[in-house]
């Protein structure tokens, strides 16, 4: 993990002092709400339906056990004993009091955390692959690059008032687990023929009311050129991005309205004009950052990597038949190994995904006791490290394979050994109308209903994603789910549109809207019918989207609306 240097710490400490003063001035009336609002938003403090909400940054989704314990402390002392992990790999607290928020920021700063740039029209938290640095298929570890970009973008004086918020995602694997094509800028790190790291720069992805898949803007940018090139993109966006209509202000709209070639030319012109002297030390900075990433010694656990890696499936099979597992436990343990344990680049280790999607629970929510329990597990078995995924789960990135049984038992006690990762009940859900001031419909109770309804039928529907957003802003990525659900307000009644066939990986695709929205109580049975139909119609080894593409919309519309309805509207 990256460890702050004195400059990082001074920056967050200074911000705490500054915000304490701003809050004090608000409480005494020296600042009006109009004056205070942009200041609180710059520190992640929103006002939602029921209370203030504090969004805390988790840069590139990486947490230490100590930081997780601090989040638990904050949840207990300043909130209602829980937090909500988001699709931006952040955490939100839903019930803080205004006067206590400076204390919360101080508590965060004490463990090298903050809430800077978790709101506002600036460069937001940079997200990445939750398996960064450990994935067996990774070419380049994206974390140091993410930290490099975080430092470049934090309080960048030129980019604090962009036309709209700006989101980066980075991956270093061909298998994109960071949804880079759904971000304003997506970066794909790879090696060139000379073995050097180069970066494909994708621009103009995003969701919301005008979803777009990013376009390859410039391939194979050298690391020495990356920061000036990104600065050039941001500069052009800052200059030409629309400020007259916030719904048309993202770079995806600028790209669509300007055209790829013209925008590329504008960026090249801006790039040529950049004072390169300002970036003379950028590679040295990256080197310094690399040096501040403390890598765990994976031999500490006593687990030795095999010279010849056994096939992962064979290894899992061997683990599942372990003699320490009682016969009545074997089924559950095997399911957990299959669904929640991932191959690691070090053959004696694995990564464990902790599902925060127990059927019927709130997706992404975690109690303070669970946070402390996971921190304990990370300290005992996971080299102190935890990751947050954009699917609102957690990852223990490195667990010695000989510790998996112990981790499973410890997670069971926390009610977190839930074997539904990458199954349809592993639902992404935004807070929706239960919390969010922007929402038009509830998403959490719909997600709970779906998960409970499909629990018995979802087995084998691997990779079939269900994402539900409570408004058109698409915080839950409904456009890129196998089954996307969008909650809307139709004359004061919640109504849910269904899209099918979306995906967020390297073959990113927007889902197709099926037809008119359906009532809240119809959503779960509809999803159940779709899962049934897919399992019935799929060819061997076929994923949901492949079945959907092969069969086309029509049969799925019949499943959703009934054949009679489809015939009438044909």
């Amino acid at each position, binding site marked *: 993990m990256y460890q702050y240097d004195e400059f990082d710490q001074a920056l967050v400490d200074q911000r705490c002092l500054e915000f304490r003063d701003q809050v004090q001035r608000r*409480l005494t*009336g020296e600042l009006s*709400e109009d004056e205070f609002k942009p200041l609180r938003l710059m520190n992640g403090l929103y*006002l*939602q*339906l*029921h*209370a*203030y909400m504090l969004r805390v940054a988790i840069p590139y989704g990486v947490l230490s056990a100590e930081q997780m314990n601090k989040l638990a402390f904050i949840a207990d002392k300043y909130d*209602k*004993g*829980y937090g909500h992990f988001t699709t931006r790999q952040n955490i939100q607290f839903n019930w*803080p*009091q*205004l*006067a206590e928020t400076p204390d919360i920021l101080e508590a965060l700063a004490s463990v090298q955390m903050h809430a800077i740039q978790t709101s506002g029209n600036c460069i937001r938290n940079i997200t990445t692959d939750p398996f960064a640095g450990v994935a067996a298929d990774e070419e380049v570890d994206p974390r140091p690059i993410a930290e490099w970009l975080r430092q470049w973008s934090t309080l960048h004086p030129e980019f604090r008032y962009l036309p709209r918020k700006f989101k980066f995602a980075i991956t270093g694997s061909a298998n994109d687990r960071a949804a880079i094509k759904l971000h304003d800028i997506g970066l794909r790190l790879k090696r060139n023929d000379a073995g050097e790291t180069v970066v494909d720069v994708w621009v103009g992805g995003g969701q919301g009311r005008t979803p777009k898949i990013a376009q390859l803007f410039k391939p194979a940018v050298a690391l020495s050129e990356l920061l000036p090139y990104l600065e050039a993109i941001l500069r052009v966006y800052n200059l030409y991005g629309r400020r007259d209509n916030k719904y048309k202000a993202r770079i995806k709209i600028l790209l669509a309205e300007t055209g790829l070639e013209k925008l590329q030319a504008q960026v090249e012109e801006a790039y040529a004009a950049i004072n390169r002297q300002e970036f003379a030390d950028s590679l040295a900075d990256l080197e310094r950052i690399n040096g501040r990433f403390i890598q765990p010694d994976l031999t500490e656990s006593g*687990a030795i990597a095999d010279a010849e890696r*056994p096939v992962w499936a064979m*290894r899992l099979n*061997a*683990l599942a038949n*372990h*003699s*320490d597992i009682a016969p009545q436990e074997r089924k559950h343990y095997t399911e957990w190994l299959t669904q929640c344990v991932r191959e690691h680049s070090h053959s*004696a280790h694995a990564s464990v995904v902790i599902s925060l999607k127990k059927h019927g*629970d*709130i997706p992404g*929510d975690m*109690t*303070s*006791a*669970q946070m*402390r*329990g996971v921190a*304990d597990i990370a300290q*005992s*078995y996971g080299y102190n490290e935890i990751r947050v995924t954009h699917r609102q789960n957690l990852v223990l990135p490195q667990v010695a*394979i*000989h*510790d*998996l*049984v*112990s981790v499973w*038992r*410890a997670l069971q*006690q*926390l*009610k977190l050994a839930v074997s539904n990762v990458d199954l349809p009940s592993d639902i992404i859900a935004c807070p929706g*109308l*239960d*919390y969010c*001031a922007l929402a038009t419909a*509830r998403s*959490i*109770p719909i997600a*709970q209903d779906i998960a409970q309804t499909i629990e018995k039928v979802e087995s084998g529907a691997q990779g079939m994603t269900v994402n539900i957003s409570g408004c058109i802003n698409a915080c839950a990525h409904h456009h890129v789910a196998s089954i996307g659900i969008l909650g809307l*307000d139709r004359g*004061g*009644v*919640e109504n849910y549109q269904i899209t099918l066939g979306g995906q967020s990986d390297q073959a990113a695709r927007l889902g197709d809207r099926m037809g008119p929205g359906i009532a809240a109580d119809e959503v779960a049975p509809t999803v159940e019918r779709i899962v049934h139909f897919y399992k019935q119609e799929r060819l061997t080894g076929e994923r949901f989207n492949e079945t959907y593409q092969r069969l086309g919309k029509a049969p799925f519309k019949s499943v959703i609306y009934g054949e009679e309805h489809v015939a009438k509207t044909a």
Partner: protein
Amino acid sequence: MANHDVKSVDVSALVIANDLLSGRSVYLTETGDWTERVENAWQLPDDQSAERAMKYAKTAEDENQIIGAYLVATDTTGRAVHIREQLRVNGPSVQFAPHHELINSTTTQPLSDAHKSLVDELV
């Protein structure tokens, strides 16, 4: 003004806002105070009383008691008409932190070393 405010009173209305300190939903009472109990909210029967109530609210905003005051339409029973305001009044419709009382990390079993040797032979 929020998106869901009403411009004129059909049946009745009340004034909702957020308390500056806590951020909690609060309602204007007939005495000009603010309460978290909706049953004590001032039910406004017509546009004239709504206008008067909003003047109180503006003063309270200027005095830094509350923020974001607006009128909410209510039915004959005084219940908010729109689901958004029903949720504001009643709180989230979902039970948060359902395992908060159930789990205490101090009950986590001692972390076992015994598994290591048992599994080592398999991997």
